[in-house]
């Protein structure tokens, strides 16, 4: 049953992604990306990472997609549709993708990423995922957590400086 859902979600991701990169209309591609994100959230749920699934939907399918759509709307989509959709680097890109896939295959074939086991938690055995994350994030990973707020501040100031012309009083 679980395996059936895994294949369903995985096929959904692959299918949506393939459709996404072959669309001429960028808006359609963006909507297909949302679909891929939702399937990915399903995969996170299967892996027992409920918090990541929630983040995936809230931040990626919600926030990041709004950002993508707004930046698409800043461009002239009507012109973009009529542009040539392939360029000469596609062969090179395919070769790079195959190489990357082979690397992932090699690592997974040797029993997975070593860092995953360092926690001592098996997948799906975490004591209530969000709770466990909260207890670790605010104690052991306190410093990265506090740094994140500085990063957010920098992102906001950068956006305001770039998009706002002058200080309005």
């Amino acid at each position, binding site marked *: 049953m679980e395996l059936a859902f895994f294949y369903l979600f995985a096929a959904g991701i692959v299918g949506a992604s393939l459709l996404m990169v072959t669309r001429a209309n960028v808006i359609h591609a963006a909507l297909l990306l949302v679909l891929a994100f939702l399937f990915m959230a399903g995969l996170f749920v299967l892996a027992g990472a409920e918090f990541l699934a929630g983040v995936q939907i809230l931040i990626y399918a919600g*926030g990041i997609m709004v950002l993508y759509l707004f930046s698409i709307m800043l461009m002239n989509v009507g012109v973009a549709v009529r542009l040539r959709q392939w360029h000469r680097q596609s062969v090179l890109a395919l070769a790079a993708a195959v190489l990357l896939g082979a690397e992932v295959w090699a690592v997974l074939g040797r029993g997975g990423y070593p860092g995953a086991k360092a926690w001592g938690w098996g997948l799906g055995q975490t004591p209530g995922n969000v709770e466990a994350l909260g207890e670790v994030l605010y104690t052991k990973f306190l410093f990265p957590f506090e740094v994140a707020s500085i990063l957010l501040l920098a*992102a906001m100031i950068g956006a305001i400086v770039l998009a706002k012309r002058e*200080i309005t009083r």
Partner: protein
Amino acid sequence: MPREYVPILTLLALAGGFGLLTLAATFLFGKRRPTARKAAAYECGIIPQTSARGRFSVKFFLVAILFIVFDVETIFLYPWAVAFRDLGLYGFVVMLPFMGLLAASLVYEWKRGALEWD
């Protein structure tokens, strides 16, 4: 498969099924007599002035970025709220600099006029 997700899955199936069924039923049984006005995007709404494919102002982008910053901030609050009882006073103190810095960024944003639509 975590069993708690069966209701969510049922809801998804019901919602998707309702949409598909409605579309299929109207496609199969409905009569189609299209006119130019019926085929408009907002058949009984505001008459479109120009194409919606025009370029939008960069102000929307700024709004989106500001939205994401605070979206990410709330994400950090979720596990904190869940683990708060165990963390106790320590958890409260730890959250102060994080929230303080983000409050400062909100003040900056406000003073800078980034919330104004000029």
